[in-house]
């Protein structure tokens, strides 16, 4: 019964808006522009950040588990269990019990990939020149997945066969090596191995493209590594890498754990200040939308004073009178934000197709809904100013003054 009774305020609010076409259109457009700008800004900056982060850490490990580089305390007391349950080795320069670590890490649902890797420095002989290279030995599945070698391969086959190597694009260019070409790789002790170029990859970053990638076992035997050099981990949410790393840092006492954030402080600071400047702009857009709605509705409240007086004489309560304006604010906010969303999407796609940007817009529930919710809130809050005025209006003021 009460719900039915409340409906007439909607009916009146809607009629006031429909009959005040020009004004309604103006304020709806105002809100729409605000929402569009907010949405565009958020999705643009979001997309830019995602692409920046993707370029930085997308095809590299987020967390590295490294040898401790010192004698672990645990060795002095045989009773202290190791990180993975058993005391096995001192993980000083290499990680010997890597299988246990990998096994343990893979149980964590937040972790996408965990794979051991063996690193070594060697030289490639090409004609008369001897060029130093960084050799990375990866395990077949997870190791390749972390570097996204399969997606980044530009020539050849992304496979780790024992007599072939995958080369980064820069090093292949520099050595003018193509698929099928053969070369000698030397280690620091002077041993050498004859390898074929099995594939060439482009990781998009300078450091990555200097890599020579081989199968881990090959690297281990060639560089006489007994354990592994590092365990590389990729997590589902890159921003949680540091937290996850810290968690494991507390659990694993014998190894050193680094997250990508620790190595990219400057990038993170840049991203953070970009986000905060975008939030500042959005904040002021919201303020200006609210002021616009408040002023238009305040004018409407004065214009509709006569109608309100009549409605009140006929039995509209103060509460209902103010409700009429809050509903108008809500309707304006809804119409404006829906239109604004359409504008925003148009603007975004126009921008993407009209300019040569290398990143996509980040359009998700957050960038879509935040401006809508903010515009609705702003509209409703702004409408309380005329609503209060409407509540205070006495019908007799209107009747007496004609």
């Amino acid at each position, binding site marked *: 019964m009460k719900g039915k009774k409340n409906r007439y305020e909607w009916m009146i609010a809607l009629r006031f808006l429909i009959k005040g076409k020009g004004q309604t259109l103006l304020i709806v457009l105002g809100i729409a522009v605000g929402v569009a700008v907010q949405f565009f800004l958020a999705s643009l900056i979001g997309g830019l950040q995602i692409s920046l982060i993707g370029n930085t850490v997308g095809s590299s490990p987020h967390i590295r588990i490294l040898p401790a580089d010192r004698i672990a305390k645990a060795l002095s007391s045989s009773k202290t269990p190791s990180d993975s349950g058993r005391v096995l080795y001192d993980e000083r320069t290499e990680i010997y019990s890597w299988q246990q670590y990998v096994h343990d890490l893979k149980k964590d649902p937040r972790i996408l990939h965990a794979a051991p890797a063996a690193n070594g420095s060697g030289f490639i002989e090409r004609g008369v020149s001897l060029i130093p290279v960084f050799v990375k030995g990866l395990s077949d599945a997870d190791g390749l997945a972390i570097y996204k070698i399969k997606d980044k391969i530009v020539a050849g086959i992304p496979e780790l066969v024992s007599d072939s190597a995958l080369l980064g694009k820069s090093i292949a260019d520099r050595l003018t090596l193509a698929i099928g070409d053969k070369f000698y790789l030397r280690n620091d002790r002077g041993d050498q191995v004859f390898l074929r170029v099995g594939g060439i990859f482009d990781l998009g970053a300078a450091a990555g493209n200097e890599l020579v990638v081989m199968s881990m076992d090959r690297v281990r035997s060639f560089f006489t590594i007994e354990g592994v050099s590092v365990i590389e981990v990729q997590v589902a949410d890159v921003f949680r890498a540091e937290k996850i790393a810290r968690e494991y840092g507390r659990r694993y006492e014998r190894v050193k754990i680094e997250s990508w954030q620790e190595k990219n402080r400057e990038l993170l600071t840049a991203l953070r200040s970009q986000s905060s400047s975008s939030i500042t702009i959005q904040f002021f857009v919201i303020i200006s939308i609210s002021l616009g709605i408040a002023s238009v509705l305040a004018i409407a409240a004065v214009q509709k004073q006569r109608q309100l*007086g009549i*409605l009140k*004489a*006929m039995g*509209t309560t103060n509460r209902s009178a103010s409700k009429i304006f809050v509903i108008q604010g809500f309707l304006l906010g809804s119409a404006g934000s829906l239109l604004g969303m359409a504008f925003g999407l148009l603007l975004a796609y126009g921008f993407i197709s009209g300019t040569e940007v290398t990143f996509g817009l980040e359009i998700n529930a957050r960038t879509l809904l935040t401006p809508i919710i903010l515009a609705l809130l702003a509209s409703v809050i702004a409408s309380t100013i005329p609503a209060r005025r409407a509540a205070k209006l006495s019908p007799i003021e209107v009747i007496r003054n004609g």
Partner: protein
Amino acid sequence: MADVILKTSKLNKTYFGKVDTPVLFDLDLQILRGSFTALIGPSGSGKSTLLNCLGLLDPQTSGEIDFDGRLISAQNVNDLAGFRNAHIGFIFQFHYLLPEYTAYENILLPCWIRGGRPAPETGREALRIMEHIGIEKLKNKYIAELSGGQQQRVSIARALINRPKLIFADEPTGNLDRESGHAVLDLMAELNRENNVTMVMVTHDRDVALRADYIYELVDGRICKFLDVKKMGKTATAAAIESRTCLIEEP
């Protein structure tokens, strides 16, 4: 014993401002159920103010109004929106219809306020009233498209739709030409007779007032004459209105 629907005792109204303006002084009056009462008086005598107080639109400063058994003091007048909606109809000099709505929609507005979307039979009732007062053809016209007489008819229909106990009219013909004015008054008299609706009308026009059953004359915020038109006859009443002496002495 007469059936009184509205009664005031010691009703006072003062407008407070930079200079306080007392308008009504200790008014005691009675309105009989089903009667047609006119409030007359020179301009500034307080007749419109009295009507607004009786119609519970303007709170009195002191004194009481007994509205068909409900006692209304100066304090609670602002909480009476629902009571006004259910029991009181208003007809003003200016039509006070909402320009955003058609004639038909305006007539139904009090029903909307009362209980949301009107039931189909309420819509039929509105059409019946419109037909009865000869405005059925104006159903879908907006207020600005209507003549003054038509607008006033629409506002009469609106005043009737919730079947109020009392209808207050403030110079309902004041803004109309003579012919439409008469038509509106005929209609009001007819509704009063046929539907037994109590009517209280403010007018400054003697001829208009003579169509009522009872006349209260206000001078300077006090009741100066009370005339029973039927008992006295129209000629005697007209003569009494003309007389400058007050028939009710100051207490």
